[in-house]
């Protein structure tokens, strides 16, 4: 058996409107349309090769998106990501934060990424209650990291 090799691109949606959130099909069509504009019919149809382009996971809270495509074609995908200016009519763009070969490696990266962000969040906190919340979260994640990795495995 030969395994289909994929690339997972972990992106972060950045937009002004905090309340607005995008679901998987919004992201998919935004990416697909951009690939079509930049790489034409060739780009779109090669994205449909198994394993085809798909949005594996979206996190509405933090705006994290996980895209999947065939290995080798990820260059087509990655080159068109910076050109996305609007998602579902709302000005927004995708910031690539990681490219990995498996979902697991992306998740590992995501955990460390979120952890590193906690300290900067702490600085942004204004009220005491918020500060307490973040501190607890930091403490908790330090303990949980090992467990989480275990569960992933």
């Amino acid at each position, binding site marked *: 058996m030969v395994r289909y090799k994929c690339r997972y691109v972990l992106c972060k949606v950045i937009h002004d409107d905090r309340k607005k959130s995008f679901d998987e099909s919004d992201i998919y069509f935004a990416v697909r349309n951009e690939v079509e504009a*930049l*790489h*034409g019919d060739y780009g779109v149809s090669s994205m449909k090769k198994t394993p085809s382009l798909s949005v594996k996971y979206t996190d509405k809270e933090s705006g994290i998106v996980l895209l999947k495509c065939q290995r080798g074609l990820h260059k087509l995908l990655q080159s068109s990501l910076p050109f996305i200016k609007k998602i579902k009519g709302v000005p927004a763009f995708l910031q690539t934060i990681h490219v990995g070969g498996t979902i697991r490696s992306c998740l590992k990266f995501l955990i460390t990424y979120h952890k590193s962000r906690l300290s900067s969040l702490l600085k942004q906190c204004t009220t005491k209650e918020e500060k307490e919340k973040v501190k607890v979260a930091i403490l908790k994640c330090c303990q949980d990291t090992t467990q989480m990795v275990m569960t992933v495995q």
Partner: protein
Amino acid sequence: MYQKIVTKGSTDYCYLKIRLDFGKDHDAIIDALNFKQLILSAAKDVFGIAVSCSLIDVLRYEKSSRTAVIRIYHKYLTKLWSSLTMYGNINGAPCAFRILQVSSHLMALANNSRSMKLHMVYDG
């Protein structure tokens, strides 16, 4: 005093001699600007902006026969060639690009012995 330089690998440019043919009962007047526009849109349909933004020079265009000599980067040769092949109609009129000659030397397009017409002198 003798010097020799051999260029084998990557030549920068590629030169193509192409002709635009229309189907039966269809005809249109295409000038040089239109012609370049057609090449660009052919490239854009199949390979998107990424290829159509590459260098495409129309070096010479003959309006009567709709034949042009174009210059492109060598690395886009395959992509442009295939997108020209795919191009099928202009505003509903069936048409086709014919690739007459391809070379990495512009000099080669000055003569085509394959399509050379013979002018015979009949004496008696």
